[in-house]
């Protein structure tokens, strides 16, 4: 593995950590400004823009060294003829860590995109094909976990909305449903639609997973980097993305859950499909 690459990555991480601290301070200032209803809102906008710029640069600059490390790890693995168990383990965990770091970067980029995403086109959504294509992308995970998906769009299949946004929302909710299934019982996830009234439809994602204690975690659920479990699963970005996209494109999210029984996430969408 290239020493330069590791050093470069460590430097970047150091910058990231220190910038993160200043970000937090700026965030605090921001919050105070908003709370005090400061008329100088351009300051708030400026801080916000800076924050975004910084995150873009940080995520972009970290990608290359991580990709290099990953490549060198592959080479190292191929070159080592008979590595000891410890070396094998170390390589495995290094690869895992690199993959995790890359996932964080990917999700951070998606979260940023979701914040500003307002340019999706209003099209006719066909739930059947949209969900089919989402599930196809998750085929290996679904098989590995032995999840039974039941999709019922007989009540409502076609409606106008923003396809990329809805894909991202559904993808995140379905991934979460799979992630938080109860390993002790066969996982079942139902995705279905219903028309609530002339102006509103509801898409439900219902699982029989571990469930969430909503009294304790309702606030945490939609925040950035907030997790409702401490087991290290999930990045804490998905729900933030969903919330932002629904804010941008119109719609709300309702959550029903019971620990040990499962959760139902209901996406309530306006049938007009107009931006919020």
């Amino acid at each position, binding site marked *: 593995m290239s020493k330069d690459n590791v050093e470069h990555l460590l430097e970047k991480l150091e910058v990231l950590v220190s910038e993160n601290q200043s970000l937090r301070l700026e965030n605090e200032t921001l919050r105070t400004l908003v709370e005090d209803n400061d008329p100088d809102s351009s300051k708030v906008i400026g801080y916000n823009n800076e924050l975004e710029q910084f995150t873009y640069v940080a995520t972009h600059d970290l990608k290359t060294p991580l990709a290099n490390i990953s490549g060198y790890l592959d080479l190292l693995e191929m070159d080592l003829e008979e590595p000891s168990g410890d070396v094998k383990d170390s390589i495995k965990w290094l690869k895992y860590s690199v993959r995790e770091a890359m996932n964080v970067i990917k999700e951070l980029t998606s979260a940023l995109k979701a914040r500003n995403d307002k340019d999706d086109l209003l099209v006719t959504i066909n739930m*059947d094909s949209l969900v*089919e294509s989402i*599930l*196809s992308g998750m*085929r290996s995970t*679904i098989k590995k976990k032995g*999840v*039974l*998906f*039941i*999709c*019922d*769009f*007989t009540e409502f299949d076609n409606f106008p909305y923003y396809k990329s946004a809805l894909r991202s929302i559904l993808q995140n909710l379905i991934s979460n449903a799979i992630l938080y299934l109860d390993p002790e019982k*066969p996982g079942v996830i139902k995705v279905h639609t219903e028309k609530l009234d002339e102006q509103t439809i509801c898409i439900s994602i219902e699982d029989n997973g571990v469930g969430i204690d909503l009294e304790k975690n309702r606030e945490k659920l939609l925040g950035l980097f907030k997790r409702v479990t401490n087991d290290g699963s999930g990045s804490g970005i998905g729900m933030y993305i969903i919330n932002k996209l629904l804010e941008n494109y119109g719609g709300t999210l309702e959550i029903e859950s019971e620990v040990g029984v499962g959760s139902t996430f209901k996406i309530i969408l306006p049938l007009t499909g107009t931006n919020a």
Partner: protein
Amino acid sequence: MREISKKIVLLGNESVGKTSLIKQYVHSIFNEEYLSTIGINISKKSVVLGDVTYKLLIWDVAGDLMNEQLYDAYLRGTHAFLLVFDSTREETYHAIIKELEVLNSYFPEVNKVIIGNKMDLLEGNAPSFDADFDLLTSAKTGENVEDAFLDLAKRINNEQG
């Protein structure tokens, strides 16, 4: 006019064309690209027979899901089974015959129709192996697809009296 909902379940091995049959019947479309079904997909189509509108809720069950746990949990309340085999692949016929035996023990009273799909790929007008079936269909050309579902609806209707 009365409206009655009926649950129809399609079973059969992977890639015999269950999803294609449903897509052809419900949406009049056929896609050459094969994507194996994940889980269970439910579609609907209405059929009018006499003074009754039958709302057929058509369950497309992934070929790799056929097992007895599934029968117990999800297939209760089925009004008719459409057992599909690929008329060019003998093993898929034997698979549904085996399935039929299990189904008969679980759901002895429920209608079952056996169809051989992909008839457009047959060289003659019958499969090259011995098979006892109700109808040959082609999800690709649409031949006999409507008839297969209509046949089921009629059987259900006759039972209704």
